[in-house]
């Protein structure tokens, strides 16, 4: 018994902005879903099941919003699954949808992730005080800054690396019409002199808060044969989780991330990720996470990730482009941010990434993480159908 190969044949995303006041929640998800269906030249009736993901329901103030979105998602009379695995959810959602095809439960599945953060204040939505439980402090930045400082101390990375990442990703976003931030006048000096929020993370090294959605159509071999555009093929996918806090936890390079990457590489037959992977879309909500994840994902030796960033290898014209789309630093509808990474990786190997296309990309990695650097989901997609 072998798994059915899984192909990505449709990708759609909304314009991402601080507040999409022009659409309801239903309008937002439908916009992304319609674009994914159009890309695949399919219609609602061609979809067998819908798998939707988003981060905490408090962000929009709707409990289990997929119930009221069933109509907008064309899900009436179909199976509808709702995934929630914190910040990694966009990736996990795509993997759950892929399993439905791989297991031959369904042939064609619509998967979608969204967040409409303008409906609330995401930072304080993450900081609800609950008695006798560890507080997350003031939003995600307050939680992650100490771990970035630990990385700086451990790797002896020079102070300017974070600003290099932010400047690169925001410049990449200028080539992505869907990106939230299009900071045409941004300079490296402006990044370096932006206000310090959570030392060492500056304002311009921090992800925005966005409204947006991303959708993909996943299908089997027969479905891929009908696709009007080249599909992206799933070569490997995995999720790993570890506890939030425990003695001995390595927040700088969590084992769950390393294990997850190792599983994906094993499934994909990757032995040298630095040489064999052509583009990476990784979840970098704060600039310093680029060098940290480069090490965690096996692209650089421990303590050496910042050298890769400094050398320019992760730039659009480098030999390991990271976040050609502009990444989470330029667009962050939290629940959708992981799926955007997965979708942008697929766009690269389909040759449909537009101005931020990496020439000749054959294999790309999509990466997402969430919670207290404890939930990881990744997929590796390729232009060729896996053997």
């Amino acid at each position, binding site marked *: *018994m*072998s*798994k059915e190969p899984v192909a990505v044949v449709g990708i759609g995303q909304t314009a991402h902005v601080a507040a999409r006041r022009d659409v*309801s*929640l239903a309008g937002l998800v439908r916009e992304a879903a319609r674009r994914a269906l159009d890309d695949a030249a399919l219609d609602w009736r061609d979809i067998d099941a819908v798998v939707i993901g988003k*981060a*905490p*329901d*408090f*962000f*929009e*103030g*709707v*409990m*289990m*919003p997929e*119930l*009221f*979105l*069933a*109509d907008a998602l064309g*899900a*009436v*009379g*179909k*199976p*509808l*699954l*709702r*995934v*929630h*695995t*914190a910040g990694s959810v966009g990736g996990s959602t795509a993997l*759950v949808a892929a*399993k*439905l095809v791989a*297991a*031959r*439960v369904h042939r064609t599945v619509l998967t979608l992730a969204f967040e409409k953060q303008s409906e609330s204040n995401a930072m304080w*939505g*993450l900081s*609800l005080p*609950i008695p006798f*439980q560890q507080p997350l402090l003031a939003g995600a930045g307050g939680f992650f800054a100490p771990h970035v400082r630990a990385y700086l101390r451990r790797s002896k990375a020079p102070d300017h690396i974070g600003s290099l990442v932010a400047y690169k990703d925001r410049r990449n976003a200028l080539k992505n019409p869907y990106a939230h931030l299009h900071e045409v006048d941004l300079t490296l000096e402006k990044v370096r002199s932006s206000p310090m929020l959570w030392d060492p993370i500056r304002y311009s090294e921090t992800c925005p808060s966005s409204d947006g959605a991303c959708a993909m159509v996943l299908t089997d071999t027969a479905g891929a044969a009908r696709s009007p555009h080249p599909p992206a093929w799933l070569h490997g996918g*995995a*999720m*790993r*989780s*570890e*506890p*939030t806090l*425990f003695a001995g936890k390595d927040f700088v390079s*969590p*084992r769950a991330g390393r*294990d*997850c990457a190792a599983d994906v590489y094993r499934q994909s037959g990757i032995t040298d990720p630095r040489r064999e992977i052509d583009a990476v879309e990784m979840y970098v909500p704060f600039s310093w996470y680029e060098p940290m994840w480069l090490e965690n994902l096996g692209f650089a030796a421990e303590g050496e990730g910042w050298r890769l960033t400094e050398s320019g290898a992760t730039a659009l014209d480098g030999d390991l482009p990271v976040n050609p789309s502009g990444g989470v630093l330029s667009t962050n509808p939290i629940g959708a941010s992981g799926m955007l990474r997965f979708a942008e990786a697929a766009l690269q190997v389909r040759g449909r990434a537009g101005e931020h296309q990496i020439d000749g990309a054959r294999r790309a990695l999509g990466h997402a993480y969430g*919670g*207290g650097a*404890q*939930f990881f989901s990744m997929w590796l997609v390729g232009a060729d159908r896996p053997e």
Partner: protein
Amino acid sequence: MPGPIRDIAVVAFAQSDHVADSSAVSEAEMVLPVLHDVLDRTGLKARDTGFVCSGSSDYLAGRAFSFTMALDAVGAWPPLSESHVEMDGAWALYEAWVALLTGEADTALVYAYGKSSPGDLREVLTRQLDPYHLAPLWPDSIALAALQAQALLDAGLTCEDELAAVAARSRTAAADNPHAQLRGPRPQGDHVVAPLRRGDCAPVGDGAAAVVLAAGDRARALCDRPAWIRGLDHRVEAHSLGVRDLTASPSTRLAAERAGAFDRPVDLAELHAPFTSQEIVLRRALDLGDGVDVNPSGGALAANPVMATGLIRIGEAAARIQRGESHRALAHATSGPCLQQNLVAVLEGES
């Protein structure tokens, strides 16, 4: 649709005692003994299972990412292949079943929990409704179920005596269920929202449940009489009550057809019906005759830990197959106002 490509079974089930108020324990403390119980039944540790999936709701817990704390009860070290649905645990079981079908794993741990006691459940569930047209009116869960019950009465499909009989039968059955919150018959009482009386409504309470799934020979090695999942499907309906016939449940019917429920008669059914009137709707959708033993556990009317109640239905049905009390059972779970979303599992002992 072809049948499952791999035989997968429920090999163990455990649940907490369901109580009206569990304020002395956190979610993780509530889940921990249930996980130990279910794993002890198989001799497995959490780290031995190939996949872990849970179901819960941030809105019940009153905090974002509430499931991250419950993960502490699992002992996710070394890191686990793990996922979570913001749905009843029955859908977590569905995700785990799919993971096993791919062949990526041979065993899976599924759990779910819910604490309704910290808030006012009727008010909390209003936040589940269309936020533009319905939620601003704050129609509570009992009021919406009462609309459904009244539609049944108006259509002549039930009567108040029949509803009272469902309540009495369920709670009498629960006298034998040590985990139930309401054990033994209760008076029907006054109307909460007419035509529903206190006795027609599930109790509000807290609890947790867990299941271990295993594939093929692994299941046979872990359990003397695995409860094989012969079919599993779920379907959703439109959200707006105004476009639905509340006296019918076409999504339950469709899920049951897809799960093969009508291929052969079942001898037992565990239905997730938090209101007596919803059991009437479900019996009709599933063609359940008088010969079928419905909710021998007492069902949701005896214990309703929201987010775990559906998973408990699958667990209870599987446990009866494991004990040889049933040969072919149907388990049902629901979510959303007035049975908007429904899941049906068909379980069998080894034939």
